[in-house]
């Protein structure tokens, strides 16, 4: 043990949320519950910041490992962290802190304290533990366990409100998640049969272009695409994300789908990089393009605010999938580096912040309005100016207008597609931006129209007071989205230190 190393903190990143979950469950319905959880959120945030700073200060920029149990791979399980995973951990830490703060006041009105203390907080922390465990995992089977933690806790959180729509969305989400995990598990079984190890690096070292590896890659791709909800496998996403409580919707759209995407990127580029081809990547790209167009169109037609945002997630995930065709495919393997990967990473971060901000502000608007009908939002800008502003900023980032994180992400995508000579993706990206503007300005236009709609019997639910904390959290996320637009190189340097960030 020479000095402080970032890898020493990896177990703590997983165990802190686990402990938080146990304590939240034991404390149950106590008035201290909110404060305890805020304390843990802060601790977790500081821990993540410390780990990130240490990782960045280590000059090597190589992935660092933590050996659990003193056995070492392949017998034991190793935790591994590299630039991409440290970025995802940092993103998780930040969003956990902000959304936890939002959650402390969100449930206060419409939710019994029993449900909140005994179900929401423990499940919330288990979900965070699963996400962190996934991002630091270096073992194929361990990733399966982490995927199940994420899938089950996310489905349980969607169901937490107990309405019929929420239960059905949760059940569909759960079944799809289980199906996806089983595909992944079969792929792991096949990989273990061929390579005799579960460690990702060792699989990568002995992987070749043989049929078993190809089949494993196909199975992993099918399973994870189901979980990521790439068009046409997106059918479960809008209902699940729209029927969940607002903080859960935010984390589902911002991080949970990205967790499966993270695993897919790892396998596609690093571990089984030998098996993936340019042709296969074009298929993923085409599905991504279709997702952009279909998602935007469905968002435009949505009548519920949260459904609109959920369809927007379907569309935005499509952009990230353009990463696959735009990456370089050399003979004998591809790698997750270069401008396409930078664009994708930037897109992941930008979308996570913007979408979380948008869901939180939408949740505030819905609370203030009493229901989620888009048509009822007319004139809400006068009553909730700050939340409408947050919604607008997040929308600007999603459309890709400057100055925002989304603009830089799209710019990187466009330049990469021109550089690689695949001009057809340029059309898709620009068309997607236009569609995005269509559905977001539809909402904003209504919000700024003066006068309120005649709320006859449609508005049965009482309007609730939106607390200052909830607005503030949404505002902070919106400011982060804007700030990322000015500080592009920071993110790019973390995630891809070897390739110098292209001047933006």
């Amino acid at each position: 043990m020479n000095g402080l190393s970032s890898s020493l903190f990896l177990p703590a990143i997983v165990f802190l949320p686990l402990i938080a979950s146990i304590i939240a469950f034991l404390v149950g319905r106590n008035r201290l519950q909110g404060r305890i959880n805020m304390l843990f959120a802060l601790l977790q945030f500081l821990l993540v910041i410390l780990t990130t700073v240490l990782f960045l200060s280590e000059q090597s920029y190589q992935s660092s490992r933590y050996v659990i149990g003193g056995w070492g791979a392949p017998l034991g399980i190793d935790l591994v962290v590299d630039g991409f995973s440290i970025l995802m951990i940092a993103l998780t830490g930040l969003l956990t802190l902000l959304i936890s703060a939002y959650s402390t006041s969100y449930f206060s009105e419409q939710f019994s304290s029993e449900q909140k203390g005994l179900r929401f907080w423990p499940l919330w922390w288990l979900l965070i533990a699963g996400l962190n465990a996934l991002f630091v995992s270096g073992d194929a089977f361990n990733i399966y366990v982490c995927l199940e933690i994420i899938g089950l806790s996310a489905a349980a959180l969607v169901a937490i409100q107990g309405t019929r729509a929420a239960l059905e969305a949760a059940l569909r989400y759960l079944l799809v998640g289980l199906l996806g995990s089983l595909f992944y598990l079969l792929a792991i079984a096949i990989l273990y049969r061929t390579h005799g190890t579960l460690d990702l690096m060792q699989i990568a070292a002995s992987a070749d272009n043989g049929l078993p590896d190809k089949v494993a890659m196909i199975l992993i791709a099918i399973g994870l695409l189901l979980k990521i909800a790439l068009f046409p496998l997106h059918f479960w996403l809008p209902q699940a994300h729209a029927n969940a409580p607002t903080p859960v919707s935010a984390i589902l759209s911002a991080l949970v789908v990205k967790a499966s995407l993270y695993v897919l990127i790892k396998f596609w580029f690093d571990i089984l990089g030998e098996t993936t081809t340019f042709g296969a990547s074009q298929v993923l790209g085409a599905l991504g393009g279709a997702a952009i167009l279909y998602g935007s169109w469905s968002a435009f037609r949505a009548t519920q605010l949260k459904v609109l945002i959920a369809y927007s997630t379907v569309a935005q995930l499509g952009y990230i999938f353009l990463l696959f065709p735009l990456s370089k495919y050399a003979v004998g393997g591809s790698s997750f580096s270069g401008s396409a990967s930078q664009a994708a990473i930037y897109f992941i971060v930008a979308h996570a912040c913007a979408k979380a901000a948008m869901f939180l502000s939408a949740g505030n608007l819905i609370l203030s309005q009493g229901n989620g009908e888009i048509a009822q939002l007319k004139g809400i800008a006068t009553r909730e100016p700050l939340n409408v502003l947050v919604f607008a900023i997040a929308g600007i980032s999603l459309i890709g207008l400057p100055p925002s994180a989304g603009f830089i992400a799209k710019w990187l995508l466009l330049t990469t597609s021109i550089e690689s000579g695949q001009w057809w993706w340029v059309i898709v990206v620009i068309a997607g931006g236009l569609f995005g503007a269509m559905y977001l300005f539809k909402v904003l236009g209504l919000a700024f129209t003066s006068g309120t709609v005649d709320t006859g019997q449609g508005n049965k639910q009482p309007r609730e007071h939106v607390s200052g904390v909830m607005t503030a959290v949404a505002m902070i996320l919106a400011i982060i989205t804007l700030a990322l637009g000015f500080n592009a190189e920071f993110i790019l340097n973390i995630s891809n230190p070897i390739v110098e960030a292209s001047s933006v």
Partner: protein
Amino acid sequence: MTSELLYMIAGLGLFSIGLSGVLIAGHVMRKILALNVMGVGIFMFLIALARKSESVFDPVPHAMVLTGIVIAVAGTALALNLMVRIHNIDETELERTRQESAKPEKIEL
């Protein structure tokens, strides 16, 4: 062909049977059972590949199966619970409409 290979093919067969069940089954219960059949197929595959010779077996796939079983139990329990809750909501709803229609004059909602 060794007997392990036969078991592995049978495991893959079970996986496929389960998969088609998930895709075409109507009732949620059938889908949940089909998911379990898929899982059992994978477990069978893993146990068959663990056997390396007459007396030598690799314990790691066995451990994977044990972990997998617990996870399958957990997933199944959650799915069944959600299914039953949806069913109850529907039943209550049905009961209410039945009572309302039994009354001579209907009350507008």
